[in-house]
């Protein structure tokens, strides 16, 4: 008898725990309308960071309080960006997609066939408030398909006590980093391993030379003509950085920005190439150094350029009754200037609307954040092309091969281009 009671109690606890652990429906359970939202864990009420979680939970609860006839069902996608986007695409392909979802910005082209235009819910003035690079991805053939809700930039950081003037060119960078390495510091580190960061952080160096990854029809052209020369120049620079001692061999282990954090936390690095969110992460690890931020050094001094990333939100349902509620919820959560201003403070996200800068937010009292916003003026996103993921993987392999000395820059790039063209389908 006791065994039966114990077993029933354990089962009930398991079921109850399951219910409480996955309590993701907000609002009256009997509300007639359900809006489903698939989002990344870090951009949800279940985020590990308490501040993030409170923000999203508060907004959703306020929404359902204002609309008792609606309940919001939040489902978390995978933390792994690629796997999450793949899962979402599969769901949409079989008609099982959510009403709206958070989408990685450079995947948006794959989602275009499924996205519902939201022109009826935003004025032209609101749309034009988004930065140009964001608008280009959001509006397709006049249809407002998605919203770019947060972004980031790539730049270099330099220790002000070690570097008097930030380098503007590769030669300057190698010279100053080389001298610092001889003095016992780690001169310059950058991502050069198997990871998207290795490609994205170096795209500005490639674009600044006039290089293009794909042509206007989406065909890969990065391995041809002047584009090929531009990539070979970038790869040669990376190899030189390691050969000259300005950078250590171990940059080949840095596939993502977070891979560099243990190295940075040691406190011996003078200059590093990374993303704008890295400084707050570094400070949270206890770093006490005085860092400056500067534009990415280029082959020759010229107009600055940076790569931008970030997340978007898109609507997949065409249910006319739901669309006004979804539009309102999206504005509360992410797309309005007020939401972006709050998110800038809560998550350190760079906003994608110009008007946010003028709102007097405490976020923009930090000179670093002002610098990032200025960089957005010449920000450029990765091409949202179906073949881009393959291009990225092959360029990661090429970068890794060149930095370790396994292949010459020309051989590595040609191998990458051949592989991409073998997969390319017009």
């Amino acid at each position, binding site marked *: 008898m006791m065994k039966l009671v114990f077993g029933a109690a354990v089962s009930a606890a398991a079921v109850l725990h399951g219910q409480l652990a996955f309590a993701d429906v907000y609002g009256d359970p009997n509300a007639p309308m359900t809006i489903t939202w698939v989002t990344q864990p870090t951009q949800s009420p279940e985020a590990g960071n308490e501040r993030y979680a409170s923000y999203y939970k508060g907004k959703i609860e306020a929404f359902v309080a204002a609309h008792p006839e609606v309940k919001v069902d939040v489902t978390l996608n995978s933390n*792994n960006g*690629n*796997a999450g986007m*793949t899962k979402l*695409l*599969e769901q*949409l*392909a*079989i008609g099982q997609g959510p009403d709206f979802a958070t989408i990685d910005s450079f995947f948006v082209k*794959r989602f275009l066939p499924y996205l519902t235009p939201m022109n009826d819910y935003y004025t032209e003035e609101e749309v034009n408030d988004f930065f140009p690079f964001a608008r280009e991805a959001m509006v397709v053939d006049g249809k407002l398909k998605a919203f770019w809700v947060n972004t980031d930039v790539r730049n270099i950081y330099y220790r002000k006590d070690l570097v008097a003037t930030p380098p503007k060119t590769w030669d300057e960078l190698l010279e100053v980093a080389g001298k610092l390495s001889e003095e016992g510091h*780690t001169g310059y580190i950058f991502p050069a*391993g*198997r*990871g998207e960061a290795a490609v994205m952080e170096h795209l500005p160096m490639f674009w600044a030379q006039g290089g293009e990854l794909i042509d206007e029809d989406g065909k890969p052209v990065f391995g041809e003509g002047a584009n090929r020369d531009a990539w070979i120049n970038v790869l040669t620079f990376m190899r030189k950085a390691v050969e000259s001692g300005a950078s*250590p*061999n*171990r*940059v*080949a*282990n840095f*596939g993502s920005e977070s891979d560099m954090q*243990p*190295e940075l936390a*040691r406190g011996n690095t003078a200059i590093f190439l990374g993303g704008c969110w890295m400084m707050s992460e570094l400070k949270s690890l206890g770093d006490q150094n005085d860092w400056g931020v500067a534009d990415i050094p280029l082959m020759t001094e010229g107009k600055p350029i940076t790569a931008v990333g970030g997340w978007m939100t898109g609507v997949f349902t065409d249910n006319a009754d739901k669309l006004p509620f979804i539009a309102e919820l999206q504005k509360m959560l992410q797309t309005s200037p007020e939401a972006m201003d709050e998110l800038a403070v809560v998550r350190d996200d760079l906003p994608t609307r110009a008007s946010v800068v003028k709102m007097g937010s405490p976020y923009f009292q930090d000179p670093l954040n002002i610098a990032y916003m200025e960089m957005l003026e010449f920000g450029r996103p990765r091409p949202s092309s179906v073949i881009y*993921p*393959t291009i*990225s*993987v092959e360029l*990661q*392999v090429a970068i*890794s*091969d060149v*930095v*370790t000395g*396994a*292949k010459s820059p020309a051989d590595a790039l040609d191998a990458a281009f051949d*592989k991409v063209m*073998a*997969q390319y*389908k017009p």
Partner: protein
Amino acid sequence: MAETLKPVRGPRDFLGGRLRVFSEDNVWLWLLPLAVLISFFYLYPVFEAVRFSFTDATTSSGDDYSYTLRSYVQTLTLPEFYAMVRTTVIFVGCSVIGQVLFGMLIATLVYEGEMRNLPGFGIVRALVLVGWVLPGVVLGIIWKLLLDESGASFMAIPFGMFGIRDPVFLSAPVPALAWVIIANIWRGTAFAMILQYSAMKTIPPEYHEAATIDGASWFQRFRLITLPSLRNILLINLILATISTLNTFDMIMPLTGGGPGRSTEVIALYIYNVVFQEFDFGRGAAVAVVLSLIGIVLTLVYFRILTNKQDGFE
């Protein structure tokens, strides 16, 4: 007067004997639920994987794909595919040999120690199991921290003591593959140890006692008593270790991501990259089929070699 025995009524006698259909003559009915489960959860996914390998499906194509041999042609004509097969062969070969040998070494030490009533071997067994219990992703992260080349890691400290400032563990192709193999041997040794230790425990202790009395050395006892007794379990160990290592990518992904270059990109990791980074479902399925065929061939080879030797011995 003797009591008249009434016939015992069993299930088959209910419903006018209709349940007789569930007799030993109709075994297939008893196997039907299992067959349904295996078909649904095993055969159907395998069938679908093989089917998709003959398509150009992507993760977003839905039902919009066509049947083609392109995925196989692309896979088998790519130069790096063969480099990846070579990497996989080296990874699997060295890992399996290492796991079996170290498993045998630790199992022998534990067995001999217990025979001599030496204390502490229970703890040794438990410690060895740690590598088996932890998920592969966690192991990959742990080994990545251990092999950090910035000088502050556990592995880098001894090099620093000898004045080597920038040791190379994962930032060059050959050392990276070597360390991935070492990490995988560490991971799989526990399972090999458990299997072989269990087999050693089935050997009657009188065999060892008799051999000792006859003057046999430890090595002679190991070679002539222990090793022949382990033959069947070694076959099982080899098969399971090979299949498990062939499918390993969860540890390699956080450890090296397949780099530097493609030096540690085994076939299983390549499948993951093709499907989840390049979204090419058809090609990923084609490579998965090739990997499965490799696993089946290796299993048949093991069976052939080890059962033939056993028959010859008899």
